[in-house]
């Protein structure tokens, strides 16, 4: 269903091609700016060519104009908002970012979905580079070591002294050898392992990635390619031999210099949904009506009783009327919950569906396998350092559930980089920072510290003011800026997730059993 459109030509005309925007990412205020020119495609009145102004190696990208926004594309922008690259900082212009168009996701159905949506936006010749990154410590034991064994047909060569395999050390090698890691006994030997097996490890990873893509129906073609990126042992995040720190990236090629325009589309979509305005502030996005009033209306009872998307592991829930404006629903082995009888697939619903698929705490594989087999350990939680994302998701949840059911509790996750700050906050309150759990990433035991940073979270995310009594604690984590994580009862999962998947894939797959 058409929800709106992206008016690239009108927008570029109005702004003179000067695309400007800002974002807060990881608590950093940053901006982007790029200037573009455009011309009409002489072959088609529905298409335009756009290129970076002043770029002599002119890379003209062909866009359909306008681009129709349907549920899937809106969801895709939500997905990109969570998993997409926002860009690294331009070292010559602090605060300014240079955004590539790249997407971090390893779930094959979501990669296939993103590839299709990218092609919808950049109708010209784009190509994809699929990256699989891994810490080479993965190959030192366990599954990785077995893969190496298979690669070498059972004869894995012994690791020689570093001086033999790497006669000249580069700067990164020297830095690596200087660094101290508690889990590492011999950096020299580990570095030798890395150079001895580098090619083998890369080949293994590339093959692994290509297999997964193929399963999802993605066969690299033309300029598309699969790449592997390996880091020196324990450098990427593996803490023990055999440990994994996998990362999956999908880079979009042939559109260099278009990250700014792409981010602008995403931000205008997001802000017009947030402000509930039919036309975004600079006119790039135009919805077919007020965002909260458009989109297909889903009859909840009918959806869960008849839609292939409303079935989980071949089971359907019981739903009965519960007063004039609500339903009472219950899945087997789950609690009853009060539902609104209808939900509209508004741009907000679709955008947050994508956002949840990217940033939600649920195991992504479970969201796609739930149609075939009973899901295990379903949980609904969401983490963000920005109010807008939190508020949009809570708004989506309240469109189907009662407000009091949407949030069970919330906490503040703080990465290890900020533990020294937490320690000082403790000292100011005459207490130490006592961690919980064997590895220290459980509930912080020192209440004074948890209470001291609560107001910070409420100011960063005022939407939580209504839930301020549900604040539980600070949770120390491995990495990341302080951020807010909320969870809802797992009872909501069986209702929310099918609708999320339907909003994103409902127009693409008639039967969710087609997921890989």
């Amino acid at each position, binding site marked *: 269903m058409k929800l709106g459109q992206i008016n690239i030509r009108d927008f570029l005309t109005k702004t003179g091609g000067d695309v400007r925007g800002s974002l807060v990412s990881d*608590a*950093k205020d940053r901006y982007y700016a790029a200037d573009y020119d455009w011309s009409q495609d002489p072959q088609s009145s529905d298409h335009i060519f756009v290129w970076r102004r002043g770029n002599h190696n002119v890379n003209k990208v062909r866009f359909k104009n306008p681009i129709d926004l349907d549920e899937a594309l809106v969801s895709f922008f939500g997905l990109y908002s969570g998993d997409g690259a926002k860009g690294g900082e331009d070292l010559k212009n602090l605060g300014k970012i240079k955004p590539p168009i790249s997407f971090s996701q390893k779930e094959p159905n979501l990669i296939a979905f993103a590839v299709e949506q990218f092609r919808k936006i950049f109708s010209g010749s784009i190509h994809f580079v699929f990256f699989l990154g891994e810490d080479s410590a993965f190959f030192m034991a366990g599954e990785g070591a077995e893969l190496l064994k298979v690669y070498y047909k059972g004869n894995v060569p012994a690791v020689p002294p570093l001086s033999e395999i790497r006669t000249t050390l580069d700067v990164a090698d020297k830095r690596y050898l200087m*660094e101290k890691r*508690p889990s590492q006994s011999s950096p020299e030997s580990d570095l030798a392992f890395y150079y001895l097996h580098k090619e083998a490890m890369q080949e293994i990873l590339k093959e692994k990635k290509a297999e997964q893509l193929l399963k999802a129906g993605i066969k690299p073609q033309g300029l598309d390619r699969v790449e592997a990126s390996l880091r020196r042992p324990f450098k990427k995040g593996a803490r023990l031999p055999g440990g994994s720190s996998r990362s999956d990236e999908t880079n979009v090629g042939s559109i260099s210099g278009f990250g700014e325009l792409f981010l602008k589309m995403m931000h205008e979509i997001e802000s017009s949904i947030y402000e509930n305005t039919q036309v975004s502030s600079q006119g790039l996005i135009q919805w077919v009506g007020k965002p909260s009033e458009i989109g297909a209306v889903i009859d909840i009872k009918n959806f869960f009783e008849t839609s292939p998307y409303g079935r989980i592991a071949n089971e359907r829930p019981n739903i009965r009327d519960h007063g004039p404006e609500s339903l009472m629903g219950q899945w087997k082995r789950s609690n009853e919950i009060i539902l609104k009888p209808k939900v509209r697939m508004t741009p907000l619903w679709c955008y947050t569906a994508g956002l949840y698929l990217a940033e939600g705490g649920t195991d992504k594989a479970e969201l796609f396998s739930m149609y075939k087999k009973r899901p295990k350990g379903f949980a609904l939680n969401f983490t963000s350092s920005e109010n807008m994302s939190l508020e949009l998701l809570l708004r989506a949840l309240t469109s189907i559930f009662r407000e009091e059911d949407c949030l069970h509790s919330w906490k503040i996750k703080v990465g290890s980089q900020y533990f020294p700050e937490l320690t000082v906050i403790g000292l*100011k309150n005459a207490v130490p920072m*006592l961690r919980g759990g064997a590895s220290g990433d459980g509930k912080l035991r020192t209440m004074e510290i*948890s209470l*001291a940073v609560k*107001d910070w979270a409420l100011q960063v995310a005022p939407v939580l003011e209504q839930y301020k009594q549900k604040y*539980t604690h600070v949770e120390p984590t491995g990495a990341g800026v302080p951020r807010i994580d909320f969870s809802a009862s797992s009872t909501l999962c069986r209702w929310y997730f099918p609708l999320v998947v339907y909003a994103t894939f409902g127009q693409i797959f008639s039967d969710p059993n087609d997921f890989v």
Partner: protein
Amino acid sequence: MMNHILLPQVDLVSIKLLPPHAAWLKDWLTELEPALDEGDVASSICLQGLLSELVLYGKPKHNWLEILKEHLTDDDGNPLAYSKAYGKRLYLFDNQWQQTNIHAIHARWWIEMFYGQLSASETKYATLIEDNIQPNGWIYNPKVSPTNIATRMKSEYLMSMAMGVEILQFHGMLSKYKTRFEATLAILPATPYLSAEYFRLAALSTIGAVAQAPCELDGVLTSCKVGEGFCDFSVGDKRDDYMGTLKRTARDFAVHSPISTLHAWKIASFCDGEARDAALATVKQFAIHLKQHPMEIPAFKIRDLIDIPFGTDVSPMEILAASALATSYDSEKI
């Protein structure tokens, strides 16, 4: 002369509060009243309340010991860090508020000592400390925090060690652990944290083994100089313990703290030469700064969220430390 381990270099009896500090402490105590009435209290609050009243009025106005006995004692008579009502300040913390941790034991011990209700022969708190000495030589209660030593905060276990040995020593129970504690403290490499190094020195001083301190203390004094005074850590030295790499800190910044400055002052007293002189000059400069800007005790900020304080700025402990620095400057002790 009256000292508390959390405020080194400070004689609580002789602190002259700067007027804004006195006003702040009075307000803090007034705002505390409703919570105290409802038993909504933590041992850290009782300690700060007692210290504040001591410095404000020369004697306590509340009976903090009774508050501790009523709300911060478990069924077996052990000290608790939090009252049941305080535990409700955090949602779903219901089962976790009953914590007998080392700082709660120390707060109770110190307050009972203050009220003259504890003699050296009454060893119940020293026995509790003994019960919490771990095979690795550190002192902590694994029932409260089971975190392995590799991921515990250094400042935390060194603070607990310093508090533990202080209690054991008072009750004449330290000697049999002396060598064990020396070895434990000696084997820990120098840390980049002022508080950790201060608490290590405090513990080693109590044990009588300062020679076991790391020889690189100058570095922490140099790197932790921040703003007008000191911060507990240096942003540039933040390092990932697992990957061995420096953290990305380009947008982060430390803030000066009177408490950290007291820690630096104490550490400097164990150093000599340029590092000591430079540290003392900074302590003096910060004392002067606090006399001119008594409330300039900032909170941390997270990257570009500069209008939003991350955690506590001014607290009773910071106020006491700040006025103590100003008093020390006036009396030419710095």
